[in-house]
Each structure stands twice: as structure tokens, then as C-alpha cells.
């Protein structure tokens, strides 16, 4: 994840981060507020349910009381009392009065009973009463002795009936009951009014306190039985897959319970609508946020791209492309700093180029002067030397008989010294020429080169008194002409300084040292005092007198110069009178030749 994120560009990363941030904030906030609103809405809904149930309960309680009062009052009329007491003449009047009590079709039965609840006179709607055994129902109805009561609901077919029973009392003596049966059939108009009162989505149910029969005020319905806990607080149930919340209240003066319920969905609708709006708003906010961040990151990355392009151009050597970012923020500062840096780099580069050009011109001039100098040195210094030697020779040839031994020695000294000066000039020029000469590297067969040099130095007489021990040598990378001078100088030195040994021995070989080939030339000559070995490779520095061993003091300096120009090193070891070993290393060749 982390690695994947790192592969994204800045322009992608910033909006992604902000998007994730906004999304998480939005989800958290909307969820928290949704939960809060939901619980508030639920509380309000529940309170409303309880309130409604209470209202309905008291409303029905009142109407029940009214009906009970009416019934009791009706039961107290004289024809009923007299008829019950046995005055059969009252039969017609009592019957009329009973009939009057069945004011509409919902009043299916009105009857008088004795104390034993056996009917003595009945007015009834025959079509219904024949289907129902009201007498038996009456037997099981709880009856107070003196209090009128509204009885339980009884269901029959798709109808629900209930009884209203009022005791008939004469002279404080219970003599019978007035019983009325009513079909529970609230008319649609009333239902509509109720519905308006409680809300169209509300479900209103009436039932017995024991939950045995439930009705929607027209027909019996199936509903769950209630317990006392349900009467205290709201409860939930499931109706045809819908979650409902409900409240129930007992109706006083009756055996009934009223229950109001709403689909939970409707209660929660406010919260859901809120959530919908919050989500919508959140999406819009995230979109706006992402767009803003995209604009912002673009406003950052665009100048960054410009800077990057300019930096690439500068890397490629184009110093003309300045970055144009007219901003007052950090990027503007960066661009300004970049531009001034480019300017400085350009100026520095131009300065440097100018300096290099100047120096090159100076160097070329110096080089030319040096060349002219070395030319005139070689030319003008040689001419007088030639004259000295020439005329000394003429003196020796033409006036030999006039010179005594001392005279001849003196002319010899003059000649010898002049010739030495000639050698010095030649060597010095060779040394300076080495500084200016270019090196053309090729692969050199060291075996052949060494053999050639030895052959030349010994005039082809390798089998002379020197014992040569020559190991197979690896190939070398270098300038064939220049490197040859190294071998010539070192081998001729070995020959020169070992000539006083009766059995001179010269060993030549090579070994590998940390990827560099090291060549060595070892002799058993006079050697040198290691105390002075730091002077060994300096120009004109000699560790032996000219009388002992002739030389100009330039040979080893030249060797050092050549080897260092090849990227190698030269050094030497020696024990006085035991011999000397000269080493030089050359980089670039790793393998020894095949015959090794």
C-alpha cells in the first residue's frame, strides 16, 4: 500500500488524501447525527403513540360511560321493573321500550334477564341472534352485581360483538339485568375522523385486556396477546414483514385495551430523509473539495513541472530557459531562487569558460614559448659545443706532436666535458618533450620489448658475462615508443651499476598487485643507500659520482614521468653493494600472458 502510494504523482496523491479525509469525516458525522436524530425521532414517535393511546383510551372510556349510564337509566324505567316483577300487562310496553333501545342495526339484541341471567324478554335482530348463542356468552361474562359494565369482545364470523349489562334495582334489591348486545361496526365516517386524528398510516386496534379478541372496529383481526409490560411502554411487532411500533392503554369502564401502532419506517422517515440529504450534501462537498484540491495541486504541480523542465534544460546545458512563475507564495520564491541560481550558474560557467579559454591561450603561449625555448636550446647551445669539440679535436689532430701528455689530457678533459654537456642537453630536452607529448596506448608485448631492449643494449651479445634471468611477462597497456624508454633506462641502469660485480646478474619479472601489474628489474650491482631514495627520481639528482658511474641524472626522472603519465607508480629497493630492485606498476591489464 505504502509503496503503491509512493508511485502516485503529487497531483494524484493530494486529492486522494483529501478525498479519503473528507469521506471519513462525512461518514462519521452523518452517522453520528443520523443515530442522534433517529433516537430523537423514535422518542418523539413513541411519546406520540403513548399520548395517542391515552387520548383514545379516555375518549372511549367516556363514550363507554355514557352508554353505561344510558343503559342503567333505561333499565330503571317502570315497564321493565314491573315486567320483571311479574306484571305481564307491561309486556307490550316493555317490549316497545326494548325495541327502542335497539336504535340502529348495530344493536342486535336488547333483553331483560332475571337475577339468574335467564332472559325473560328479548328484542332482537333474528338473522344475527339466531347465529349466536348470546345466552351462553352472557353466562361467562363477568358481571358485577350492582355495577353496569361493558363486556368483552366476542367474535363471530367476521363480526365482533360486545355486551352492555346494567343491573335493574328496585328498592335496593337487584331484580334483574338489562342486557344489550352490539355489533362493533364503527361507520366509515367516524373511522375517517379517527384516522385523521391519529394519522393515516397509524393502525388502531381494540381488544380484550386478556388479548383474546382484537378488532379494527369493524372486523376481528389477529394480533398478538399483550402483557402488563406492553401497557407501560411502547413495543414493537412485525406485520407482513414491516416493523411496527405500538403503544397500548386500557380503557376504563370496559374490559378493553386500545392499541395504536405506526410502521417504524414512517417514524424513521425523517431520520432517513435527513440521512439521504446528508449523504447527498456530503457527495457534493467531497466533489467540491476534490475539485478544489485538484485545482490546488495543479497549481502546485504545474509550476513544479515548469521548474523540472527548466532544471532539465539547465542540466542539458541550456541556461536561457528561466522559469516564469508570478506568484507570491513559496513556489514563487522557489522559482525566483531557481532563476537566480541558473543565472549564477550561467555566470559562473561563462566565467569558467572565459577563464579556461584565457588559461588555454596562456598555456598555448607558454607551450609555444617552451617549444621555441627548447628549439633554441637544442640549436644554439649545441653549435658552440660542436665548435669546442671540433676545434679541440682539430688541436689534437693537427698539433698532436706539439702537445705533451698533460696537454693531451687537458684537451681530452675539454672534449669529455663538452660531450657530457651535449648529453645533458639531449636528455633534458627528452625529459621536457615527455611532458608535452601525448600518449597513444596500445597493447604491448612486454616479452618482445624487453628482449629487443636487451639485444640493443648488449649489441646482440646476450651471452656476455651478465646472467639474464627473464621471467615471462604480461602484456602491458601503454605508448609503445615511450614505454620502451622506461625499459631502456632501467635495464641500462642495471647493466651499468652491476658491471663492477664479477658475476653480474639481472632478473626481470612481473607480479600482480591489487589488479595492477608490477614489473621489476633486479640487479646485484652496487645498489644505493635507501636513505636517499626520495632523491632517486628527481632531475639531476645522482647517488653516485660521475667518476664511478657516468650519467646525467635524468634517466630515472624520465622513467618516473613516463610511468606517472601512464597512471602507474615507480619505486625502488636496495641494499648497498648487494643490488637494487626497481619496480614500476601499470594499470589496465589484468591477465598475465597466456604462456605464464
Amino acid at each position, binding site marked *: 500500500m505504502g509503496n503503491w502510494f509512493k508511485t502516485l504523482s503529487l497531483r494524484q496523491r493530494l486529492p486522494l488524501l483529501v478525498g479519503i479525509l473528507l469521506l471519513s469525516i462525512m461518514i462519521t458525522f452523518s452517522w453520528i447525527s443520523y443515530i442522534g436524530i433517529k433516537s430523537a425521532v423514535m422518542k418523539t414517535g413513541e411519546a406520540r403513540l403513548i399520548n395517542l393511546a391515552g387520548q383514545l383510551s379516555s375518549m372511549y372510556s367516556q363514550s363507554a360511560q355514557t352508554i353505561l349510564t344510558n343503559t342503567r337509566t333505561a333499565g330503571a324505567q317502570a315497564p321493565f321493573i314491573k315486567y320483571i316483577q311479574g306484571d305481564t300487562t307491561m309486556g307490550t310496553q316493555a317490549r316497545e321500550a326494548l325495541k327502542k333501545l335497539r336504535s340502529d342495526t348495530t344493536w342486535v339484541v336488547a333483553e331483560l334477564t332475571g337475577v339468574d341471567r335467564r332472559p325473560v324478554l328479548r328484542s332482537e335482530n333474528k338473522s344475527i341472534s339466531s347465529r349466536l348463542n348470546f345466552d351462553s356468552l352472557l353466562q361467562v361474562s363477568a358481571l358485577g352485581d350492582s355495577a353496569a359494565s361493558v363486556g368483552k369482545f366476542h367474535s363471530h364470523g367476521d363480526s365482533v360483538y360486545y355486551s352492555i349489562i346494567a343491573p335493574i334495582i328496585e328498592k335496593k334489591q337487584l331484580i334483574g339485568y338489562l342486557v344489550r348486545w352490539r355489533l362493533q361496526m364503527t361507520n366509515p365516517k367516524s373511522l375517517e375522523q379517527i384516522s385523521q386524528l391519529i394519522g393515516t398510516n397509524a393502525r388502531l386496534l381494540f381488544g380484550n385486556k386478556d388479548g383474546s379478541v382484537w378488532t379494527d372496529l369493524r372486523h376481528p383481526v389477529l394480533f398478538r396477546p399483550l402483557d402488563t409490560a406492553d401497557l407501560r411502554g411502547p413495543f414493537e411487532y412485525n406485520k407482513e414483514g414491516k416493523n411496527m411500533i405500538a403503544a397500548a392503554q386500557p380503557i376504563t369502564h370496559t374490559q378493553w385495551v386500545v392499541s395504536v401502532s405506526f410502521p417504524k419506517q414512517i417514524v424513521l422517515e425523517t431520520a432517513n430523509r435527513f440521512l439521504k440529504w446528508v449523504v447527498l450534501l456530503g457527495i457534493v462537498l467531497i466533489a467540491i473539495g476534490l475539485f478544489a484540491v485538484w485545482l490546488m495541486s495543479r497549481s502546485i504541480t504545474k509550476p513544479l513541472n515548469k521548474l523540472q523542465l527548466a532544471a532539465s534544460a539547465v542540466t542539458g546545458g541550456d541556461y536561457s530557459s528561466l522559469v516564469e512563475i508570478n506568484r507570491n507564495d513559496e513556489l514563487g520564491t522557489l522559482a525566483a531562487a531557481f532563476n537566480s541560481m541558473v543565472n549564477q550558474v550561467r555566470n559562473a560557467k561563462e566565467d569558467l569558460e572565459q577563464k579556461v579559454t584565457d588559461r588555454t591561450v596562456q598555456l598555448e603561449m607558454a607551450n609555444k614559448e617552451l617549444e621555441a625555448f627548447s628549439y633554441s636550446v637544442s*640549436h644554439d647551445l649545441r653549435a658552440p659545443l660542436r665548435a669546442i669539440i671540433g676545434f679541440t679535436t682539430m688541436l689534437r689532430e693537427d698539433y698532436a706532436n706539439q702537445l705533451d701528455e698533460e696537454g693531451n689530457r687537458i684537451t681530452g678533459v675539454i672534449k669529455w666535458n663538452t660531450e657530457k654537456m651535449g648529453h645533458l642537453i639531449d636528455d633534458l630536452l627528452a625529459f621536457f618533450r615527455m611532458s608535452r607529448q601525448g600518449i597513444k596506448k596500445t597493447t604491448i608485448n612486454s616479452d618482445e620489448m624487453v628482449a629487443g631492449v636487451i639485444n640493443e643494449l648488449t649489441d646482440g651479445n646476450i651471452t656476455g658475462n651478465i646472467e639474464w634471468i627473464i621471467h615471462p611477462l604480461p602484456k602491458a597497456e601503454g605508448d609503445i615508443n615511450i614505454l620502451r624508454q622506461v625499459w631502456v633506462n632501467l635495464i641500462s641502469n642495471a647493466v651499468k651499476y652491476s658491471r663492477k660485480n664479477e658475476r653480474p646478474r639481472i632478473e626481470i619479472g612481473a607480479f600482480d598487485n591489487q589488479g595492477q601489474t608490477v614489473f621489476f628489474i633486479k640487479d646485484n650491482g652496487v645498489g644505493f643507500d635507501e636513505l636517499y631514495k626520495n632523491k632517486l627520481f628527481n632531475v639531476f639528482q645522482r647517488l653516485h659520482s660521475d667518476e664511478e658511474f657516468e650519467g646525467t641524472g635524468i634517466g630515472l626522472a624520465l622513467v618516473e614521468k613516463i610511468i606517472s603519465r601512464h597512471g602507474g607508480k615507480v619505486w625502488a629497493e636496495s641494499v648497498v653493494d648487494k643490488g637494487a630492485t626497481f619496480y614500476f606498476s601499470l594499470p589496465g591489464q589484468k591477465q598475465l600472458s597466456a604462456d605464464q
Partner: protein
Amino acid sequence: MNQNLVEVLLVEDNRYDAELTIRELKKHNMANNLVHVKDGETALEFIFATGRFAGNRDAGCPPKIILLDIQMPKVNGIEVLQKIKSHEILKATPVIILTSSKEDPDIRKCYELGANSYIVKPVNFEGFAEAIKNLGFYWLLTNQPPVR
């Protein structure tokens, strides 16, 4: 000496070098008809029979060989060589360049201009003598000059 029968023209400003050269040639009997001039200007006057040599000699009879030093005052050896080698008849005359130094930057130029030989005068007398002797033998005796 008949100036028209000159065998060797030595152009050399250093009189000691000239003396040594002449001595060596004489030793081997090759300096009988030798003229020594000390600068390029005189050399050109001699060769082209102008100036001091006008009327003295015939420009149509060049020397057998010309020994020419490079470093000289006024007119140097290169210019002399250039004039000789650009002359229709004279260009057939062998010109041997003598110089003190093998460092000379003009060696290549001399050959390009048509120098027939280029000799570095050694410091050591034996070498010098040997060089002059060989040069004389070769160019005066061995080499077949162009038919006049």
C-alpha cells in the same frame, strides 16, 4: 676558381661549423670547388647570379649540391630552399639541409618543399665528421646528378 664550376655551395652562418665542414670535405678531397656564403641573401644572389654575383657567373650552371643551414640571419634556409625548389631549372639541384637539432619544427616543411636530405649535425666531432664525409661521398660521388 671558376664560379660556374662550383661543386659544393655551403650556406652556413656559423663560421666554426663552416670551418669544420670544409675541413672534413677537404680531408676527403671534396672541397676543391666549394663556395661558402654566410647568409641566405648572399646564397640567393649567388645561385641566381644577382646582386654581388651579377655578371660574375651564369645562373644556368648551378652547383652540384647545396648544403643549407636553416637558422640564418636575414633570409633563412627555408626561404632559400623555397626559391630554389620553385625554380624550373634549379629545382633539380640536390639540397641537403643541415641543422643543429632534431627538435627542429621545420623538418617536415623542408621535405614538403623538396629538400633532398636532412642531416642533424651531431655535437660530437667524430659523428659530425662521419656525417659530412658520408654526405660528400654520396652526393658528389655516388649520386648521379641531373644531366645539364
